[in-house]
C-alpha cells in the first residue's frame, strides 16, 4: 500500500471527524429537546480521498506532499451541514465559531452575498488547536439541492443544450429558492411566536 498523502496524520484526522460528529449530535439533541425541531436535516463529514487530494494538488500546481495536503489545501477534512431553515444555518455558525479548541480562519457568507451564478452557502474554515484545517459548508436544503444540480451540470462536458440559458435559469431558480427560504423562515417565526403565547 502506497504511503498516504496524509502521512501518519490520518488517525488524528479521523478523531477530529468523530469528535465533530459527536459534538454536532449533542447539539442537535439539545436543540431538538428545547425547541421541538432538529436544526439539522443532514450532516456529512469526510476526509478527502487520496486521489481527490492528489488531483487537487496537481490542479493547483502544488507538489503532492503532506504539507500541501494539510497546509496549502484546506478541505482535507470537509463537513457539510444542511439545515431545514435559514436561522438554523446561523445557529450552527454561531456554535462552530465559539468552540474553544478551534479557531476561525475564514468565514464567507455566500447567503447574504450570493455568487453571481446563484450559489448560496455559508463557508467556514476552522483550525484545530493542533493545526488541522476543517472546511465547513452550511446551507439550507434548497441551497443544497441547487448546488448539487449546478455541480452536476458544471462537471459535465459536451452538453449539447444552451449552456447560457441553463446558467441564467439556474440563477433564477436560485433566487426563487432563496425567496422561499425566507418565506418559510417567516412562517416558522410566526408559528414559534404563537406557540409562546
Amino acid at each position, binding site marked *: 500500500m502506497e504511503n498516504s498523502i496524509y502521512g501518519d496524520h490520518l488517525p488524528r484526522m479521523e478523531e477530529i471527524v468523530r469528535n465533530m460528529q459527536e459534538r454536532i449530535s449533542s447539539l442537535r439533541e439539545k436543540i431538538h429537546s428545547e425547541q421541538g425541531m432538529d436544526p439539522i436535516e443532514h450532516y456529512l463529514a469526510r476526509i478527502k480521498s487520496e486521489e481527490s487530494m492528489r488531483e487537487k494538488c496537481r490542479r493547483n500546481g502544488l507538489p503532492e506532499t503532506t504539507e500541501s495536503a494539510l497546509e496549502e489545501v484546506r478541505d482535507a477534512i470537509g463537513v457539510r451541514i444542511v439545515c431545514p431553515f435559514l436561522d438554523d444555518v446561523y445557529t450552527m455558525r454561531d456554535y462552530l465559531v465559539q468552540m474553544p479548541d478551534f479557531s476561525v480562519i475564514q468565514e464567507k457568507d455566500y447567503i*447574504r*452575498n450570493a455568487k453571481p451564478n446563484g450559489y448560496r452557502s455559508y463557508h467556514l474554515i476552522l483550525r484545530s488547536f493542533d493545526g488541522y484545517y476543517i472546511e465547513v459548508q452550511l446551507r439550507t436544503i434548497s441551497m443544497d439541492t441547487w448546488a448539487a444540480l449546478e455541480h452536476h451540470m458544471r462537471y459535465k462536458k459536451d452538453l449539447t443544450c444552451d449552456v447560457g440559458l441553463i446558467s441564467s435559469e439556474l440563477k*433564477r431558480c436560485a433566487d426563487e429558492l*432563496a*425567496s422561499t427560504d*425566507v418565506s418559510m*423562515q*417567516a412562517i416558522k*417565526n410566526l408559528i414559534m411566536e404563537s406557540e409562546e403565547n
Partner: protein
Amino acid sequence: MKLLLAEDTQDLNRAVTALLKHEDYEVDSVFDGEEALNSIMLSDYDGVILDIMMPKKDGLEVLREMRRRHIMTPVLLLTAKAEIDDRITGLDAGADDYLPKPFAMKELLARIRSMTRRTTAYTVTELCFEDITLNPKESVLSAHNTVSLSKTEFELMQVLMANKDTELTTEYILSHVWKNDEKAHKDTVWLYINYLKGKLKSVGSRVTILGEKGGSFVLTTQL
C-alpha cells in the same frame, strides 16, 4: 410603437398611415378583416385600429376573435355608423374606444395616445428606493443580491415604494394589494410584511419596514 390599421377605403387608409408614420409610429396597413387577423396573429402590436365595415371579416368579428384568443392589445374602432347601439356593441365586444367617421386626424392621434398609454406610461418601470431596486419584468428585488418576489409580494413592495413617505394602514394595503379578497385579513398583511422584511435583509439592504400587526407600515432605512 407599432400599430395595425385595418381600413378598406384606400384613400383613407393611405392618409391615416402617412399621418401615423409622420408621428413616428411603425404602421402595418391592411384592407380587410382576414389580413387584419393574420397580422395580429403574426405580430405583437401596441394598438390596433379597426374599421368596422370591411370585406372578408368585419371589425367586430376581428375584435371578437382577438379577445377570444386572449390578445389584449388595445383596439380603437372606426365606425361609420354613429348610432349608440353600434357603439355599445363595439365597446362590449372588447374595444377600448371608438371614433365615428368622419373624424379629425388630431382626435384620432389623441385617442391612440390615450389607449396606448396604459401599456407604456402606466407600466411600471424599475422602482428605486435607497439601495433597493424593484424590477417588474423579472419580479426581482435587488440590493447587494437578488431575490425573487411572488406576485403578491411584488405588489406589496410596489405599493410601499410608491408611497415611501406615507404610513399605509393595513386597510389600505388590503384594498390595494389584496383588492378586498375575502380570505385576506390583517394576519395576511402582517405575514407578507414579514416576508418582505426577510427578503430585504437577504439582499443586504439597509431598508426595512416599520409597523406592527394590524397597524400602519412604512419603509425606512436603518443605519
